[in-house]
C-alpha cells in the first residue's frame, strides 16, 4: 500500500530521518522495548518538533558562503532561510538555534 502512497513514503522518510538525527526515547519493559516517535503531521501541518529538527539539520549543513550569497539572513533576531528566488523557506526565531548557528560560523 505504501508503495504508491506518497504521504506514507514521506512519513517513512521522516521516521528514518528522526531515527538518525532526533532524540530517540525508549521505554524498556521486561520483554519489550517501545520506541517513542513523534506524530510527524499535526492538524495538516508538520509537527513543530520535526520542523525544528529539519531546520537544525539544514542549518548544520550550511556554510558562511550561504550567508554571503544571501541564502540565509539574520535580521531583527530572525534567521531566514531563503530559496533560490529569495523567498523565505523557514524563519528561525528560537534564540538557541540562532546562537548555535552564529557561533558555528563565527558570526
Amino acid at each position: 500500500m505504501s508503495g504508491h502512497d506518497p504521504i506514507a513514503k514521506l512519513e517513512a522518510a521522516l521516521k528514518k530521518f528522526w531515527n538518525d538525527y532526533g532524540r530517540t526515547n525508549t521505554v524498556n519493559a521486561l520483554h519489550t522495548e517501545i520506541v517513542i516517535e513523534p506524530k510527524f503531521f499535526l492538524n495538516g501541518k508538520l509537527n513543530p518538533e520535526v520542523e525544528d529538527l529539519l531546520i537544525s539539520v539544514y542549518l548544520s549543513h550550511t556554510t558562511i558562503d550561504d550567508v554571503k550569497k544571501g541564502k540565509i539572513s539574520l535580521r531583527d533576531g530572525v534567521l531566514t532561510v531563503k530559496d533560490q528566488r529569495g523567498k523565505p523557506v523557514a524563519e528561525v526565531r528560537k534564540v538557541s538555534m540562532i546562537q548555535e548557528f552564529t557561533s558555528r560560523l563565527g558570526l
Partner: protein
Amino acid sequence: MDITKQVQTYQLHSRVGAHPVPIGQLQQIATALLSDARGIGGLTFSVGKTAVTTQELPQFLASLKMNPQQLTSVIYGLYKEVREKGTLSPGADNMIHLDESKLAALAKSDAIQSELSLRALSMQRGKSIDPLFARSGSPKRAANLPPSVPYGINSNHTADTIVASDSDAPAPAAEHNSVPQPKALLSSVLGAYISKADISEACNILFPEGGIA
C-alpha cells in the same frame, strides 16, 4: 556582641516567620479566605457554647484578645484544615466544633505564620494572591489563562501545575519557528531518504495551498 546572641539574632532573622506581615496584607488575606466558599466561607463554627459564622469570626477572635497576626493565622489554619487537610469538617449539627485551646494553638503556630509570611512576600513582589487558593482550583485563575493554555475547566491538569507555572520569573516569550515553504525544506533535508518527486507529490496533498504550512 556576645557570640551566642549573634547566633540567636541570625536564627531569628533567617526564619521566614520572623518577618512581620503588614496589617493591610493580613487583612487582604483574611478577607479572601473568609469569602472563599470552597474553604471556610459560609460555615458556622461552634466554640464552646458560642456559635460563630465565618463573617463573625474576626470579631470573635478579636474578642479573645488576638492581634491581627494571630487572627489571620487562625483563619488561615482553619482554611487549611477544612479545605486542604480535611481534618476539620462540620458535625451533625452542621457546625465545626472547636475549643479555645485549638484556636490558641493555631494563633501561635510557627508553621502557619511562616507560611503567611511567604504569602505576604509573594504579594509584595507583585504576585497575585491566587496561588493561595490555586491548590483548590481557582476558577478565576483558570478563566484568566489564554485559551491556548491547557488549563481549562475540563483539563486533566491539576491546579498544582498552575502553581508550578506561576513562578516569579517572567515567562519567556514564545519563540516559534515557522516554515512558509515546507516542501522546499523537506526537499533540502530529506534527499537521502526519499526522492524529490515523492516529496513534491506528498506535499501537494498535504499542503495544497501552494506549500504554505
